[in-house]
């Protein structure tokens, strides 16, 4: 499974299957399109760390604007 698919699965877990995953691609904006605000963003960062075994910091969070940004960040840190 590629990073995008794993990430979509993670979004689905965090949002209890309520999120429509079909339209999500690398250009999808995390805050505006997926509606992830502070606490959800924090939770997503923790979930990404667990799922992918990467270490994220405060400096990484502002760079996680789109799904593509998250994928690049994960792949850089892997």
């Amino acid at each position: 499974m590629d990073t995008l698919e794993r990430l979509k699965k993670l979004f689905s877990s965090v949002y209890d299957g309520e999120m429509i995953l079909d339209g999500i691609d690398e250009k999808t904006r995390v805050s505006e399109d997926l509606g992830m605000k502070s606490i959800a963003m924090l939770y997503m960062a923790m979930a990404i760390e667990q799922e992918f075994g990467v270490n994220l910091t405060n400096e990484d969070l502002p760079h996680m604007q789109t799904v593509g940004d998250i994928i690049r960040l994960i792949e850089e840190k892997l």
Partner: protein
Amino acid sequence: MSKDTKNTTIKQDPAVHIKFLPIDIPRAAVGLIGGIIFRPKKIYISDKRPSRKGGALVIANHYSYSDPLILGISMNRRMYYLAGELAMGKGLKTLGLKGCGCIGIDRNISDLDGIKRAVNVMKRGHYLLMFPQGRLHREEEMTELKSGAILMAWQANVPILPVYVKKGDKWYNRAKIVVGEEFRVSDYCEKAMPSMSDINKLTRITLDKMKECEQKYFEYFKKK
């Protein structure tokens, strides 16, 4: 991803160790003075007492600035405290508060690093005190909690221990503490990873448990 894998990387601290002396000696001194001033009286909501070992997230109402001190001297465990960056201050104040076990967290950003420091303290087997109402709330009724508490307890895989604390109305009155029953995120959510709606539900459950402690306070102390 398994619930059991979360605690495997961090070793628990021993209850007594020379490395804690720089923290424990000033704490004992402050605790002695605080104990004389506040003379805290602690009761339990049920016969099921909190575990004597392992970390836990202690969540309390925030009625006065002396709450951390009262709880620190009453819970019979080495306690760490989650504090806003503003409360942590600068320079010597920051150093002093860190020495007393305060962990600063910046509420203006999603402070992932601060949360990780707090989670690690609990994983190492310590109590972490936080006030999930966010700021000082002098009004009697608790209406809302921040859901970050649930996230941290889940991430650290430790129980949540709700308590209600209130210092005496007059300087000569004893401080009162009601200790609730500890519970785990996994008691209410069987999934390895709770969803955001699970977290919101658990936040409401936590608020209810804090209210039970508050109710016990009024039943036990105010009827006397």
